[in-house]
């Protein structure tokens, strides 16, 4: 397929791997202290597992799978609130597909659906708005999730609902922003990261400038990367090249999609509809300042948190669950006490087991082959 197969070419992959091997050889990491590069975005995690990229890399180069899976970092209390909304009489709860199985403290949306709640899977917030228009007697609530990638589409849908005077539509806003979380990880005393693959689609919206502090203040290279296997390999090579040359900069491998200054129209919609929350709870990472957004007062009638009384309880992660340490790269998924035992993709205990972008689910499904295999 044109513009797809080219980015999965085996010969080019081999050439990039050879370059990566050469740089790793030059940098001489030890088995005790391998080079560690975090891919922040869940889309990258998925690609890395989907194409078996880890097995192609030298053992002394470790990939740390970061917090960039919005479904995975959603805390249980928010899922409980969402279930409570879904269980209200007359409500249609519209959600992206992979949020439906995220466990709450009582049940997931999938279980709520089985128990009679009207939960619908949609591909876009506009599908939810269309549901609201089609069924004016029902209250349609969109479960808004995701980083800056999905923020603009929710914002534009709210603006459209306002323009058209749709009264039975609201948004349960769980949008989060990645930059404060990268900073929290960098400030954490146990992190051992040498560089980052920056998110591709988030950067398409916000541009590359918001990452500058990572290079300047923390001295870590960051390369904004595309999602195809050759994108990931080339970006890894670019990170290593920076390390080898003693540079720490923000580079853009995904220039075919990501403009330096981002998408002005998308950012304008985001600014118009949302404001920063003082803090937001992340599963496994705890509360992070200014990491979540909510709907501004001016659009309050589209805000499910204002429209409904919600339990709004903070539910602690299960004690046995080590999602936080996995997210910071302190342990690998399979080193978690409950990995593959109490916690599997069928019955996820921790959020990282839920979505195919979650590091644990990806390891469980694709990753039994950690060691490089004979060609």
């Amino acid at each position, binding site marked *: *397929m044109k513009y*797809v*197969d080219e980015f*999965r*070419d*085996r010969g080019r*992959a*081999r050439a990039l791997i050879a370059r990566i091997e050469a740089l790793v050889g030059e940098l001489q990491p030890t088995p005790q202290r391998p080079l560690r590069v975090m891919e922040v975005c*869940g*889309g990258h995690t*998925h690609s890395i*597992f*989907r*194409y*078996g*990229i*880890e*097995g*192609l890399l030298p053992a002394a180069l470790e990939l740390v799978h970061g917090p960039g899976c*919005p*479904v995975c970092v959603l805390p249980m209390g928010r899922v409980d609130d969402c279930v409570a909304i879904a269980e209200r009489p007359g409500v249609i709860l519209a959600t*992206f*597909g*992979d*949020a*439906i*199985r995220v466990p709450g403290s009582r049940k997931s949306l999938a279980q709520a659906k089985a128990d009679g709640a009207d939960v619908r*899977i*949609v*591909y876009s917030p506009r*599908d939810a708005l269309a549901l609201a228009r089609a069924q004016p007697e029902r209250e349609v609530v969109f479960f808004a*999730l*995701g*980083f800056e*990638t*999905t923020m603009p589409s929710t914002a534009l849908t709210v603006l459209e609902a306002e323009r058209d005077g749709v009264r039975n539509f609201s948004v349960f806003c769980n949008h989060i922003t990645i930059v404060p979380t990268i900073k929290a990880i960098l400030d954490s005393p146990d992190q051992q990261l040498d560089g980052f693959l920056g998110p591709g*689609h988030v950067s398409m919206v916000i541009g590359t400038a918001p990452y500058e502090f990572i290079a300047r203040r923390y001295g870590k290279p960051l390369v904004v990367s595309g999602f195809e*296997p*050759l994108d990931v*390999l080339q970006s890894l090579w670019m990170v290593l090249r920076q390390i080898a040359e003693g540079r720490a900069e923000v580079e853009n491998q995904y220039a075919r999609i990501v403009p330096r200054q981002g998408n002005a129209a998308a950012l304008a919609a985001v600014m118009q509809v949302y404001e920063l929350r003082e803090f937001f709870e992340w599963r496994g990472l705890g509360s992070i300042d200014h990491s979540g957004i909510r709907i501004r007062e001016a659009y309050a009638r589209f805000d499910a948190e204002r429209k409904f009384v919600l339990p709004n309880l903070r539910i602690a992660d299960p004690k046995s669950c080590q999602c936080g340490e996995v997210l910071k790269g302190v342990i690998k998924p399979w080193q978690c006490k409950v990995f593959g035992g109490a916690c599997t*993709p*069928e019955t996820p205990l921790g959020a990282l087991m839920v*979505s*195919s*972008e979650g590091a644990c689910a990806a390891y*469980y*499904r*694709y*990753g*039994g*082959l950690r060691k490089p*295999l004979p*060609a």
Partner: protein
Amino acid sequence: MRGLLPLRRPEKAASRVKTVTLAHGGGGKATKDLIGEVFVRAFDNRWLAPLEDQARVELDSCRALGDRLAFTTDSYVVDPLIFPGGDIGKLAVCGTINDLAVGGAVPLHLACAVIIEEGVPIELLKRFADSMARTAAAAGVHIVTGDTKVVPKGACDKLFITTTGIGVIRRGLNLAAGNARPGDVVLVNGVLGDHGAAILAARGDLALQTPIESDCAALHGLIGVLLEAAPGLRLVRDATRGGLATLLNEVAAASRTAIEIDEASTPLREEVKGFCEILGLDPLYLANEGKIAAVVAPAEAAAALAALRAHPLGRDAVAIGTVSAGEPGRVTMRTLVGGRRIVDMLLGEQLPRIC
């Protein structure tokens, strides 16, 4: 006034009723009319015609074909009822024929039980009955008995069909998932995922238009030529729900072998590839209704592949992988870029990723 009404001929009563009502499920005259008008008319064969409570199948005709009866049943609840490349009727006949055929059986007779939600137009039922009849006739099988139930609105989704089939397996033939041996070759008869993609697109909630049609087809003819070309055939399975990935996992588990497939050889229609790229779906898990995986000994692989390719339903057949003595039950894929990954069973539904 009574005397002024024209006399109604009883057999025409049903045709004036446009939709199925609960009365049609009462077991009385309306039921009999509906069955006669819709099903008996369409299926029309000598086993069904006496309308006894059971069809009576001659054992002698079975004995001539083999030494074991193959017996299977499957329910069809597809939504939408009509989709590009087929409808629930065609699917209900092909699916059960295929369940017989992958066991090496010659399919003979089907039973058909329908559960109808009140309010379904009778014309629509007729359409599906005709579709079943056409598909069965083309496949050389007969629908010889059945049952009709009508349930209140909301108790089922328009129409559910259960078909049960019998066929005969020839003496000495024993295709089974446990038969795969290290060194064997895995063949598929063509592009994967068409049915799953066609159904998803036809549901209309994706706002994606595609020209993809379901691959729904009866495969006993194809499996017949495969058996002639490769008499030592180990097993055949049809890659329905859960797709090729699930099928291969079942084979690897049953035979305690490992299977590795090659992404570069995986046959996919460009449209299905694009569909999966956009929605974040893995085509290995998409359902098929006209695709098999066959496992053959290496010595028979070339002949088997040639036989598949010579058949209209196997023109795009390829060798997609090999069986090995690796970790028992493990299915892996050599990816396009040369990496390897595990191909696991489908867990739950295949949910679309959001970003």
